[in-house]
């Protein structure tokens, strides 16, 4: 856990941040409106005596007070999808509309793909890209279970995904996952600044390609479940470069408290604009950790 010390300067109320790491995270799920309405689903859970609580910031998100929510009939039938609370944020920031064409560049296991699909009411097209063959299976099975009809799966290396243009692109990048410590203790023991810098190379290339594949006026969302600035602000700054072809838009989800992206790291100034991006910390909303940036292509 000492590893987190490197974030002492950037995380507000660092002691609480450190303390919450060993508190396990509650189970949570998203209601899949492709197959059921919120009202019907809640009625069912009540009838069955499942204890739950709606997220106060997102009516389709539920905290489930139950040990194995995966075993619920509602899950097998695709009425709900087990998903981390903050994992529901990036699609909402992306804001896909029915009929649009969307690229989800790093898609498996498809929690965000299927959320995007439901926001689009199964209309339009989502390309869910996932290069790893082993990870295509869970992506496919989640799409099938959730009744998704507007997703096609490709297997390109996201750095070389060949053609667009798309209305919106999500880059939910492979990352060091520091923000998952509450879910899978031990994650932090595998983290190091070197590892973050290795991932950064890949992340910058993924984001650059996403920006290239987006229509003028289109939106790119870059997200990770990690705190390391090397994988977050520094990636966004490097991918956007100097040109004013892109601008950052403020990320803000009403009801969820974000901290502004950092504008200084290890004594180095970063672009002021990065404060538009959002850092979500576990001790502030009682969640995991996430970073989200919203980029508009001019």
């Amino acid at each position, binding site marked *: 856990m000492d590893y987190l010390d490197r974030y002492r300067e950037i995380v507000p109320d660092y002691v609480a941040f450190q303390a919450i790491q060993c508190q396990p995270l509650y189970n949570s799920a998203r209601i899949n409106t492709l*197959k059921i309405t919120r009202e019907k689903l809640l009625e069912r859970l009540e*009838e*069955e*005596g*499942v204890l739950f609580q709606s997220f106060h910031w997102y009516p389709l998100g539920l905290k489930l007070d*139950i040990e194995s929510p995966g*075993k*619920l*009939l509602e899950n*097998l*039938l*695709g009425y709900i999808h087990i998903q981390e609370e903050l994992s529901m944020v990036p699609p909402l920031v992306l804001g896909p509309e029915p009929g649009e*064409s969307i690229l989800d560049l790093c898609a498996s296991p498809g929690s965000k793909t299927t959320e995007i699909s439901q926001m689009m009411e*199964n*209309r*339009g*097209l989502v*390309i869910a890209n996932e290069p790893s063959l082993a990870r*295509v299976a869970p992506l*496919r*099975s989640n*799409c*099938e*279970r959730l*009744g*998704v*009809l*507007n*997703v*096609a*799966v*490709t*297997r*390109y290396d996201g750095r070389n995904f*060949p*053609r*667009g243009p798309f209305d919106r692109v999500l880059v939910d990048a492979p990352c060091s996952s520091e923000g998952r410590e509450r879910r899978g203790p031990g994650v932090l023991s595998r983290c190091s600044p070197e590892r973050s810098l290795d991932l950064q190379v890949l992340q910058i290339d993924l984001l650059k390609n996403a920006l290239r594949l987006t229509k003028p006026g289109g939106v790119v969302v870059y997200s990770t479940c990690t705190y390391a600035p090397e994988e977050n602000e520094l990636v966004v700054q490097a991918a956007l470069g100097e040109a004013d072809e892109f601008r950052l838009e403020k990320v803000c989800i009403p009801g969820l408290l974000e901290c502004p992206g950092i504008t200084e790291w290890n004594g180095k100034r970063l672009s002021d604009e990065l404060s538009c991006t959002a850092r979500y910390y576990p001790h502030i909303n009682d969640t995991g950790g996430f970073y989200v940036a919203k980029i508009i292509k001019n």
Partner: protein
Amino acid sequence: MSPRSSRIRNIFEPLEKSLIAKLWQDRFGIPGPAFAGCKFFRKARSIWAISDVDLPRLSYETIGMRIMSCKDRPWKPTTSALQIFGRYATKNLLHLNREEAVIFLEGGSQGIESDCEIGYVVVFYRGDVLGCGLYSHGKLVSQIPKERRMASIARSEDCPV
């Protein structure tokens, strides 16, 4: 035509909607409009449905949802497809009671009385489509894929209120 597009066509071949609609109409009485907004492709012995959009020229792993297999006769609907389109079925459907539903969801076989024709049926429980079953001579064999089977749905009894 560029080599890439001809490659797509060799893998996912577009199919007439009316062809598919007729098969589902004949077996399950599902009306054609249930498939409005979809288009269909065939790849090897499987048929896929996707929202009615133009697909960019890419090399695809899957296109939409795998809705049926034509590997054997008769053609077999997938459980995923029945959970979407099966609720419009007007024939060859079965309603199970709780005990029967549990066996079905566990992937089991059981004796059931019904006037369904021999072949694949849409299986319901309390208004939900559970999935695809194979019915013949008074026996229902669950076709629920392994990863979607359930040990028990009797959880409400298990949890103290």
